[in-house]
């Protein structure tokens, strides 16, 4: 994010203060009245996790939640959601503690290049908030506004199904694949039975 407010040299729509609740924090930014939400979130508020993919509202990469509902931020004027609760991918985790949907996208192959991932996470989160036990068909319908070119969607559906189970409490929160803080100096098993240097 550039740390200065430009005064444009050519005639453009004048900027004014825009405010909303982004990821639980009151936020203010300077934006022209014709700014789209995507640009304000990325360029002014610093939420670079919201992605621009297609300029046309066809790929879903820019999906955010507005008052809990998924919305294409590229087809939404910032002014339309002034004052609303906006959730981006940056708002899913609680500090270092990832939401189940985030962990499952990692452990079930839902994310390969990762560019479409934020959009899918928001759509999935909205689904799971309203439907704790979606069928695979229902999951497909919830994400049919999101395009992915890497995964072929199957492992994305697997990830969302797995996250739903965890959120419902039907499956335990996954342990990390391996310990994130392994001790490089572990102890061996019981005591040695012979002194060193004595070959059997």
């Amino acid at each position: 994010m550039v740390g200065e407010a430009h005064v444009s040299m050519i005639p453009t729509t004048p900027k004014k203060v825009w405010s909303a609740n982004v990821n639980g924090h009151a936020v203010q930014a300077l934006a022209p009245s014709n700014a789209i939400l995507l640009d304000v979130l990325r360029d002014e508020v610093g939420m670079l996790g919201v992605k621009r993919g297609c300029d046309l509202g066809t790929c879903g990469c820019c999906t955010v939640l507005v008052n809990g509902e998924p919305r294409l931020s590229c087809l939404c004027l910032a002014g339309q959601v002034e004052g609303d609760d906006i959730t981006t991918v940056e708002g899913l985790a609680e500090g270092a503690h990832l939401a189940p949907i985030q962990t499952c996208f990692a452990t079930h192959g839902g994310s390969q290049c990762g560019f479409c991932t934020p959009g899918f996470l928001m759509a999935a989160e909205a689904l799971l908030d309203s439907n704790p036990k979606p069928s695979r068909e229902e999951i497909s319908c919830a994400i049919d506004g999101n395009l992915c070119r890497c995964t072929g969607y199957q492992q994305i559906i697997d990830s969302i199904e797995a996250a739903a189970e965890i959120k419902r409490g039907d499956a335990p929160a996954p342990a990390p694949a391996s310990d994130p803080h392994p001790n490089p100096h572990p102890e061996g098993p019981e005591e040695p039975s012979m002194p060193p240097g004595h070959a059997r």
Partner: protein
Amino acid sequence: MRDDFMSGGYKQQPGAARGTTRKDGKRVAGKQKFPPPGSGGSNPNMAPRDLDWIPESVGGKEPQPAGSHIHDRYRTGTSVGKPRALVDSHAKVTGQAWYGDDVRLQNEIIGKILRSPHHYAKIKSIDTSKVEALPGVLAVATGQDAPNTFGVLPVTKDEHAMAVEKVRHVGDLVACVAAVDEATAMEALNLFEIEWEVLEPVFDPKKGLEDQDEPIHWRGKYHVGKTNVQKRVFQEFGDRSLVEEPSASSHGKWRMEGVHHGFTEPHAVVAHWDPNGRLQLYTPQQVPHYAHRALSTVLEVPMHQINVIRTFVGGGFGGKSDPFPHEMCAAILARKAGRPVRINFSREEVYWINRGRHPSHIEVKMTADEDARISGFDIDALIDGGGFASFGHVTSYYNGVLATAPYELGSFHYTGARVWTNKPASGAMRGHGAVNTRCAVEVGLDEMSEQLEVDPIDLRLANLLPPHSRTISGFRITSNGMREALERVREGSNWDQKFRQMPLGKGIGIGCGFFISGSGLPIHWDPNRFPHATVHMQIDMDGGVTVHTGAADIGQGSTTAVAQVVSEVLALPIEMIHVRSHESDTSPVDLGSYSSRVTFMNANAAIRAALDIREKLLNAAWEMIGYHPDVLVLNDRRIYYKHDPAVGVSYLEALHKAQEDKGSLIASGAYRSPPMGGVHKGAAAGLAPAYSFSAYVAEVDVDVETGLISCTDVWAAHDCGKALNPLAVEGQIIGSCHMGLGQVLSEKMVYGRTGHLQNPNLLEYKIPSVHEMPNVTPIIVESSDPEGPFGAKEAGEGPLLPILPAVVNAVYDAIGVRIRELPLTPDVVWKAISAKTKSMDGIDPTDLPAPRLNHGPLQATLVERGNEHRERDKKRQRSEDTSAYVNGVLFGFDPERPMEDQVEGWKTAVEPVPEQLAELGLAGKAWLKKEQRHMGGEQ
């Protein structure tokens, strides 16, 4: 002991370091009283050896049906073979992964590119005065600022940063501007005053084969006549006499539309000349090294003054694997303005830069003899290159040479030609030129099966090249899982109960694939003994392993693969392995993420570096506990005597011992493909240190009244040698199905009658949504490649090839109409159905006869031969039979003698003789003209 030498008698650690006796009278060997600096963290106890993940050949429980591997003794059960999350997945799921447009430097300004509105035109003059006068514009550049050419292949450097003399397609770069904000930059684009001389454009590659008034590029003495032919290929091998009097033959003429990679991240680039005057270029690149070379050439700055920083890449698939003109533009603007410049593409611009799959005209003829052996392939491929060469020189070869396997052939002929047209340039796209030809070949086999009255799977099973053989073109085949792939999809799909037995509108089809696991010869000849991949490793006293690799992770998981093999060799959890791969300053050269080379070559280089470190650690442990490395075991952060796990040292202790007097441990590993292949012109194209094999069965529903196809199920078997990370391999298989399915059913770059690209957006360029996807059952076949890292081969491109023919063949099984055009959109299918019903006296489409199969006498011949070959292949795979095998043995030739000595009339030719010219197809017309140097032209 040397402990007194360095410290002059002063002991830094309190207490005795060795040989204390404990309360119960037992001696404790080599334990320090205080834990070494750097210890701490969780999991304080060593886990027992995970025998399920250690191969049988070295005492574990992991089965090895394909035989043992030289890397088996380095398996520690830590990482290889276990499905796991990608090591950078945390960044992706939290939105912290930084792609091209996410790099926001202090003081940045915005760059925009002025693009040509004309298909083909000369630039008479560019007046930038009004642009420069616009307040807020900080830099302007045109082609005059960068006259040096570049291109991804050194043999075809035909691109400029911006057009110098003429523009060659709508969207071609003309000029660029950088300004304080996007609005100013966009306004500035309107202020360029350009005088054009519009030229007559060429859109049809067939037209490009003829002499032109103004060829789109000029190749000097190599230029073919005055045409737009960029590259022509001819290869002929084998015994043509085998083709005479075939028992079956297939002749198909195909038309495949151009398709695009369709990644979700549009291109973007940030260029910044840092305070030391060096260029820092941030770009989502598949080939940072090639971009590095090209930048140096274009900017006239030595490579050591440029740092190419590969950002996260939001999908590549060959669409981000060229050095790009917009990268040059950003660097030029940033140098002029003295501020960082960020250029990001609109989705439309992504189509102007293109590099997608070539629109193709492919003609395939094939014959089979009385024993249902494949006596000949004749392939002609004319491909539409668009405005620039890109990877096209290589595409021209791959459209033919990669059809020389997996089947054994009596003879093989390929004529190829790539033609420039005034359209956005075609380039490399997942699977490259092999994809379209493979589809045509596999459908031809289906047609021949019908004539021979045999099952198409059995036809294939009885005609496969075995493991450890050579193709008719001289490619070295090592591991080969084709047979197992075919057998497993046959079983998984219930093929025998369904093929040619389902009702009208339901069909099942088979398709196979064969692909390189890394190009065997690098595209840069000089210096030509350079390794293909180098990996550096560094461990300091904290125990963390830093791996430096140039491997470009584009979402395929190369970073994870490298971390996994290091983790495996050193028996360390993957969390202790940190891979640094983003910057050319700190990464040794890797040639790039294309031709499916990265896992194979970088993991191999990483293993070599890790083995060096392993040796140092084992030697240190030897000094500490007195047992020779041959009897030491690495397991879960410890090194111990193999007969007594309690007798050992921790990794950290061994590390600190190894570091005495040296400090950091550093190792370097490199990989280079062994020399191989023939010596004929073009012999290198298609060479690879290993090949992947795949077989897919697709099941479809076709609505005969609307032409709508729905693919319901795919059984997808892919031989990847060894799945280092099965979760990732399955992801690649399913993702490839998605991309290939798109090409079959809905994707095409639509050019209208005036030559304009009509659908440069994701609404009208239709990539499959979740609803279009079938149920994919990925099946991993592991043939354990002798040269692969732990046996692994590629799984990035090969899995795409089979889905096209599987679906096309399934459509035939469903409706009895063979269509040789892609994509099979409903209007195309409907036209074909209409033509068929008309030819049957205007019956209702719902009365079309669904195809049926009654096995003829050759079916039994094939099954018997297939069974014989299965036994032959099992022995060869497990190296129980190491006899020579070359293409031709099936036809009775001796593998130990050159074919030319055995067969009169055995051909090896790289140029057509004049008598053949009349028989050649479309691409053959490229051979009608002579090169300039043979016409007395350009010397």
